[in-house]
């Protein structure tokens, strides 16, 4: 994960969130579409410097 972050300029919030997901549900089973969409929205919000602090 840290290697990926070093190779691509995303913020700590995004990296931490994805790292957290990868340590949990993402390893256990294939995520449903709705779960993927919710996570995608959260990550998109986390990339926006104006909304990062309020991101879920």
């Amino acid at each position, binding site marked *: *994960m840290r290697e990926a972050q070093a190779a691509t300029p995303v913020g700590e919030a995004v990296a931490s969130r994805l790292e957290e997901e990868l340590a949990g549900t993402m*390893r256990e089973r294939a995520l449903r579409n709705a779960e993927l969409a919710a996570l*995608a929205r959260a990550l*998109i919000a986390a990339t926006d410097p104006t909304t990062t602090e309020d991101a879920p």
Partner: protein
Amino acid sequence: MRIKALRLTWFRGAADPVTLGADGKSMGIYGCNGAGKSSFVDSVEYGIRGGKIGHLVSEYSGRNQEKAIPNTHTPANGNTEFSIVFQDDSELNVKIAPNGTYTRTGADAVAMHDWDYRRIVLRQDEVAEFIRSRKGEKYSALLPLFGLHELEVAAENLRQLARSVESQAKLPQKQGALSQIASRRRQAFGNESDAAIEARIDALYAKYCPAERATAALDRCKELEAALANRIGALTAENQRYLALRALAELDFAGAVSAVRDANAQLASSVDPLITEKLAVLQSAEVFAVRLEDAGEIECPACGKPIAADAFKAHVQAEEERLGNIIGAFEERRAAVSTLIDCLKALKTALGKAELEQWQAAISETAGKADLEWIEHCEPESYRRSLGEDDLAAIATHGPLLVAAADEASRDAPPAIAELSGDQGTIDAAKSVFESQALVAEITRIGELIAFINAAERGIRTEIRERSEAVIAEISADIGAMWAMLHPGEPIENVGLYLPDEDKAIDISLRFHGKDQDSPRLTLSEGYRNSLGLCIFLALAKREAGSDRPLILDDVVVSLDRNHRGMIVDLLKSQFADRQVIIFTHDRDWYAELRHQLGGKQWEFKALLPYETPQLGIRWSERTTSFDDARAQLKDRPDSAGNDARKIMDIELALIAEKLRVRLPYLRGERNDHRTWNDFLERLLADGKKCLQKKSGADYPSYTAGLDVLDAARRLLVSWGNRSSHSLDVERAEATKLIDACEKALDVFECGGCGMPLWLADAGNQEWVQCQCGDLRWRYGKG
């Protein structure tokens, strides 16, 4: 969990209950073709695979294999069922209804359905299956052994997440909007850079807003808009009319319509063949599903074209790229339509202005009336849903005429008005360029997020590969060691697994007479492939999580020659001594060899009677030898029965002589390898006078009664055994007596007290061997 017993009732070849009693030991089971060996293996597969037996899958066996699994002659009151009793005395009971549905009860703790069939059972037709399978199938077969399921799930979730981010961020739409702005920028500024456009705005800012202090380009544009609005408000009515007409005259309907037509053409050239191919796909989908079972060429489910199975993955990727390009063409068209709609809206807005009422009234008196009526009824937003060639033709006809009329009417405008109009257009276009910078930043952020997720997926796939390589190295070492045991000193070496460059693939490499080979399919004969297949199965089975699970080999040595078959015994003894191994074979020689080499406390041997009728079903012989095969022929072919008895003695006596270290005179050339019962029995009788001993009190006198039995068999073999082979002139009674005599002769080498063979224990003194209880003894070296 070891198996204690398998009990079959009207299941496959079985009729009334027949039980394979292993009692947790390893077993060697002999049966001629069709005797029912595989029925036992079928029951294990049924238990593991939850009601399916792989070799019965066909269009004829029925949805639940109900036409293949029950005995064909199951009586109306008979039930098809089987039980598997495990070492802990738990019992799995399976009852199969006539329609093939089944119920299973018991042995929940064993959880047989969690066993991996490919690590438990190997059948004759599956020996080379792994070698024949494609690289991806090999990977899938080995995946459970890698313990990488979690990583595989995570990598796939990341792949799907990247797609979801793209969709949730509406990335294609945003890219379309950006494309529209870029189109307008090209129209207004050509190839000018952002700095050049900013310089233009700076100049206009100095011209129209000399007292203002905004620094950001976008802010300057907004202030310029306000300043120009003030100036326009102060213009005379005539100049305001000129200005409105100039704005109208600068609309580029011809360019906008042309852009939509170009996008339409590009889209049509991409989509038309796609639709044709998709129709073909629907028709060939069923064919594809059937042909996927075979190796070689298949039809692509995306386009229907014939394609080599190995190239399928690359083909799918190319198809995905192609679809990506088509989506891009859609976005281009959407942007072109939006530009055209903006033109139409600008035209309607301009015509709605009070200062142009007089001009409209004037052109209504001319041919321009039709153009005005057309624009009045035009609804630009409706073109987002549907924009046909008729619509484009109407726009291309009426729009430019109104633009031309406005241009004509504004030709007498003062230069300052024309300049003001031009500046207004520049400011408007520049404002959209600067506003788009936020959109660009957003698209860049989303792109970086997707790249990040993709990088994380690549990282996991790298980890999968590294860990796979480590496991593969261990498995390869086992395969190599087993291969070396089966083929010592042979010029096929370095046998092992490797990971090719592409993802999710595994293949087998080896060195053939000093040359590296990427696949055993390039050089190895069928016999060698099967031998390699057996090594791979055993190497994988060694890694089976449940090492107390049995290993079942069903007729797996068919294509191996005698030397290599012999090595398998050594392999099983050295590598699987602690595992329950159940071997089924129809090879009489190998069965005899197994009995002699593996006999003892850990192994049981049983023989099946030849199959007679479905009503009689599978039956066990009371003997561990294969003489019942000979007896089965007594009725119709007594000569064959006698001949079979003689052949059995050829094999059995050779193995006994080897066990007892009986020395035979050296013969020239290949004659050493073609000795018969006569050579061995003569020598056993001669040596036996001093070597074969039976305990009497504290002494070991010669076992003369046993020698008499051997001699009786020798005499019958000389007379009737040879006649069976050469003149076929043997009566049923004679053949019966011959078989009985041969069977009794072999019994001489088994202790009547403990039931163990004469060579069970050697006491470590190299002087003699004896049975378990010590009643029967063979003293080496002529006593």
